């Protein structure tokens, strides 16, 4: 039995965006949605996190920051791109400094579309991400066993 599903700790990063999705992610922590019910904690520390929630686009300046956060997270980990900006660049796609969605910087496991994303969709997305996390945890275990 794996406990990843029961205690997913998240880290949240906001790239170039209008901050709409950013606020919606934080709204998930409020009494109305209360994601701590599912054991989800917003850690703010990549070394403690299992799920990387990313809103907004990747630009030339935050590219390294996002990669750095991702690399500091211990395995198994998943990445969820939240909002249209994060999935493809959205309305900022044509900006001179914008590279595009999050997948231009790091591998993304779950795309959660919406502009802005509703908190329900975010929670739904995180739950889907947990499925991926479980699979990665199992893969890590078999890898360790065979090594």
């Amino acid at each position, binding site marked *: 039995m*794996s406990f990843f599903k*029961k205690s997913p700790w998240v880290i949240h990063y906001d790239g170039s965006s209008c901050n709409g999705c950013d606020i919606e992610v934080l709204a998930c922590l409020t009494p109305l949605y*209360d994601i701590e019910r599912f054991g989800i904690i917003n850690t*703010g520390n990549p070394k*403690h996190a299992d799920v990387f929630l990313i809103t907004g686009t990747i630009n030339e300046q935050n590219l390294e920051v996002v990669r750095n956060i991702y690399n*500091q997270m211990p*395995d*198994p980990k998943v990445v969820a791109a939240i909002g249209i900006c994060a999935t493809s660049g959205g309305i900022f796609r044509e900006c001179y400094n914008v590279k595009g969605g999050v997948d231009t910087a790091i591998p993304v496991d779950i795309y959660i579309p919406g502009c802005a994303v509703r908190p329900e969709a975010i929670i739904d997305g995180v739950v889907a991400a947990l499925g991926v996390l479980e699979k990665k945890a199992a893969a890590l275990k078999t890898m360790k066993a065979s090594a």
Partner: protein
Amino acid sequence: MKTALCVVAWVVIAPFLGGLLAGVDRIITARMQSRVGPPLLQPFYDVLKLFGKQGVAVNVFQNYYMVCFLVFVIVTGALFFSGGDILLTIFALAVAGVFFALGAFSPNSPYSNIGAERELLQMMSYEPILIIAAIGMFMVTKSWHVHDIAGFQKPLFVFLPGVFLAFLFVLTIKLRKSPFDLSTSHHGHQELVKGATTEFAGPSLAVIEIAHWYENVLLMGFVYLFFAFNWVVAIPAVLVAYFIEIFIDNTYARLTWHFTLKSSWIVAGVCGVVNIFLIAFLVK
């Protein structure tokens, strides 16, 4: 034989009690913020998950220090619950704290370094009161042994109200709760990130968490001593003390280390030392 039994009971039962305490803490905290909160067993899920994670470490020493921290907390509790010398218990607890600070110094990250420095400052703040509490207990019961203090037939609390108040004050520091969560900020997304525990991932973070559970149960044991004349009074008193801590945790923002150090020494001086002097003159 009985001593050995007490030690085994402490080693086996304390983490479960500590974990449950942490679970209750999180639920009550959530209710105070009009949220539902996590399931009661959430702290256990967290720790079991952490053991399944990859242990990323900056250097080879840092996890070793944290294991020492856990071991010394367990040793401290074993001394305490087997009825040993209370002064020795307090010193062993200080050693555990030093290992925690060393572990936090080890990875050289700015956040954990600040956390470690603050941990040392916190130790400076609470250590005098712990010693004063031990001295007060000795003066009333005429024994340094936890066994005799717990077996004292009159309520210690009545003799040492000032010391008890001072002890409650530092309990907040020791439980690492707001307003004194200086070394490991309670919520990660703040200026300190996670302070002393920032650089610990996976299994070593789980070890720290378990050590905290042991520590919390040990501290509740200290609170119990003040009411040990009758367990029917003592157990509710311990729970009320913990509830007060949760309440304070939720109603105060973090204070600076200057204030922590100053206020805890003032409280130790005013409540603790005055109480001790009164005891010295009155209880003969």
